[in-house]
């Protein structure tokens, strides 16, 4: 993959945190243990799944070859009773790096990154997917995580997987 200038992303960290804070309302209610994220990676008839709430340690690893097309799917659901949990950002990314790193963040050259903001009433589910060709050998991580849930559920939820491309 050729080296590119990063897509212009605008304002800085402090302004970003401030704006995100404006976005995020307050809604106390469901427990984080009832907010579940599932992440699945598939290619060539094989698949690997990761779910949120797993103890720290080595995440599941999916093996692929360069140029393989991988299909990444995720879903998030609020299984808790109580009032809706509002303005949760569901953030998903795939980037080069080690999934064992603590709270990894995507860099400017992340292969994929998305953000979806929605309210999660009880039983509400949100999902997404993308399909892409893995550009070159290396170690990649895929992470689906909440942003803004900690203030409402007590902690954030994340599902993480490592993709090893040979």
């Amino acid at each position, binding site marked *: 993959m050729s080296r590119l200038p990063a897509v212009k*992303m605008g304002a800085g960290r402090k302004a970003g*945190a401030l704006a995100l804070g404006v976005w995020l309302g307050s809604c106390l209610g469901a427990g984080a243990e009832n907010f579940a994220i599932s992440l699945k990676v598939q290619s060539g008839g094989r698949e690997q799944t990761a779910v949120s709430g797993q103890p720290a340690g080595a995440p599941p690893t999916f093996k692929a070859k360069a140029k393989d097309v991988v299909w990444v799917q995720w879903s998030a659901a609020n299984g808790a009773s109580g009032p809706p949990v509002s303005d949760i950002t569901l953030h998903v990314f795939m980037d080069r790096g080690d999934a064992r790193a603590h709270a990894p963040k995507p860099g400017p050259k992340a292969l994929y990154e998305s953000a979806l903001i929605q*309210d999660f009433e009880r039983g509400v589910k949100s999902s*997404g997917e993308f*399909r892409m060709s893995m550009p070159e050998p290396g170690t990649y991580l895929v992470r689906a995580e909440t*942003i803004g849930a900690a203030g409402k559920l007590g902690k954030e939820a994340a599902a993480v997987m490592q993709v090893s491309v040979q």
Partner: protein
Amino acid sequence: MKYTTWAFSLALALLPSAARAEHFDIKLTATGPDGMGKEAFADQTPPIGGLNPRPVLRAKAGDTIAIQFIMTNVYAHESARNAGIRFYIVREPQLGQKPVPPLENLTAEGSFTFNLKPKAKIGAKERVVMSQPGVYLLRVESQRTQRDHEHFAAIDLEIR
């Protein structure tokens, strides 16, 4: 935090164009290796292919194209359960053609399913290697919004 910065940029990017569309605001950009990019805004279908001419981004085979879109439900009083957004890059026979070609052998694709609430925001960016010469359609579109039309934004890619 990088993601926080990006989330903020989603909001910022929406502000200048929020008044252009009646329901869904969309800003779609495609940027080549030289940093030059094209952008497109919300159009609607029907009619087939929408009303606006599509910008064309030209690049070379092997180049990586950075695509990014941000969509906002700007209609303040309506929600839709299980609404969707889909984006894709697909070959097309000619630049600017109105009909969407069959969605086969997609170069890149992705989708979201969610409960669309007023002011909801959805954004994604992806880096796609365009390995083969040809003409391609990059398109992001709303789905299942329970309205009589859907919104989209599109850019043509001419890969030499």
